[in-house]
C-alpha cells in the first residue's frame, strides 16, 4: 500500500528510491528528502542513555494532506522511508513495522552479496520484486 519506498545511506544519499505513480516522482523525492530532517531529529531525541533500547521503527514521521511518511533506521544508520497514501486507512501500525522488517531483511541479503560494494546504488532483482509486492498491494 506504499506509494514510495526509499533506502537512504548513512551519508544521506539515496541508495534506492522507487515510487508507484511515476509521473510525480520528483514530488516523492522531495518528500523523502524533507523527511530526513525528521528522522535525524528522532534519532537524536532518543538520547544517548537509551541507545540500548532504541527502537528501529520510528513510526509516523509527519503527515501531509495526501500522504503519511513512516521511517525506520538501522543500527548502521541506513534509513528506510515509506510514503503511504492517506486514504488507505486499512493499514495498522504493526503492518508498517513488519513491512520495514521485510525491507531490512532484504537489505541485509543484498549486503551479503560479495559483489555489492556498500554505498553503491541497489540494483537487485530480488529487492525490486519485494518492493513491488509491497507497492502493488494497493490494487
Amino acid at each position: 500500500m506504499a506509494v514510495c519506498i526509499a533506502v537512504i545511506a548513512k551519508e544521506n544519499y539515496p541508495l534506492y528510491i522507487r515510487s508507484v505513480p511515476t509521473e510525480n516522482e520528483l514530488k516523492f523525492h522531495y518528500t523523502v528528502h524533507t523527511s530526513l530532517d525528521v528522522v535525524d531529529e528522532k534519532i537524536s531525541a532518543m538520547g544517548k542513555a537509551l541507545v540500548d533500547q532504541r527502537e528501529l521503527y520510528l513510526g509516523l514521521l509527519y503527515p501531509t494532506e495526501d500522504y503519511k511518511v513512516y521511517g525506520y533506521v538501522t543500527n548502521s544508520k541506513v534509513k528506510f522511508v515509506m510514503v503511504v497514501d492517506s486514504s488507505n486507512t486499512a493499514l495498522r501500525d504493526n503492518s508498517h513495522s513488519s513491512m520495514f522488517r521485510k525491507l531490512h531483511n532484504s537489505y541485509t541479503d543484498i549486503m551479503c552479496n560479495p559483489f555489492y560494494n556498500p554505498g553503491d546504488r541497489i540494483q537487485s532483482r530480488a529487492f525490486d520484486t519485494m518492493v513491488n509486492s509491497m507497492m502493488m498491494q494497493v490494487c
Partner: protein
Amino acid sequence: MSRSPGRKQENHKISRELFVLTYGALVAQLCKDYEKDEDVNACLDRMGYSIGIRLIDDFLARSAVKKCRSYSETADMIAQVAFKMYLGVTPSVSCSSAAGNEFSLILDKNPLVDFVEELPVERASLCYCNLLCGVIRGALEMVHLAAEVSFLQDRLKGDAVTEIGITFLRKPEDRKHRR
C-alpha cells in the same frame, strides 16, 4: 592433528554464514585483482587444488571408507560422503559416458552461492565455485586418480542446475599394475 579412531571426534562447527561470506569475499577480491575471468578461474582452481591435496587425508581419516573398486564407486563416495561431510549437501551422481569414466554431480542446492543473486555483468564467464573443482581434482590426485573436473552447468549463469563434470583420465585396467 592425528586422529585415532578410538578418540571421540570433535566436530568443530563454524557458522555457515561466516564460511559463505568468507568465500564470497575471496572471490570478490580475486575479481578486483585480476581483470580476466579466466585468470580468476585459474586462481580459484589452484587454490582448490592445494586445499584438495590436504583435505583428502582429513576426509580419509574421518570417514574411514574402504578402497573404491571402480570409478563409479569413487564418484558416489565424493557425492554422498565427502560433499555431505564438508558442505552438507548431497549431489546426485550420473554417469555420462559408455566407457564409465565420465560422471556428473548435479547440485540442486549450492551453499556457497547463498547470497549471490547473479554474476555481475562484466564477469559473465566467472566460475564462482571453481574452488570446488580444484578441491576434487587435488584430492583425487593424492589417491592416484588423475581427473579433470569442471563446471558443465552453473545456476549463476542461467542454467537450470549446477553440474560438476568429473572425467577420470586413466583406464580402470591400469590400476592393476600397482599391486
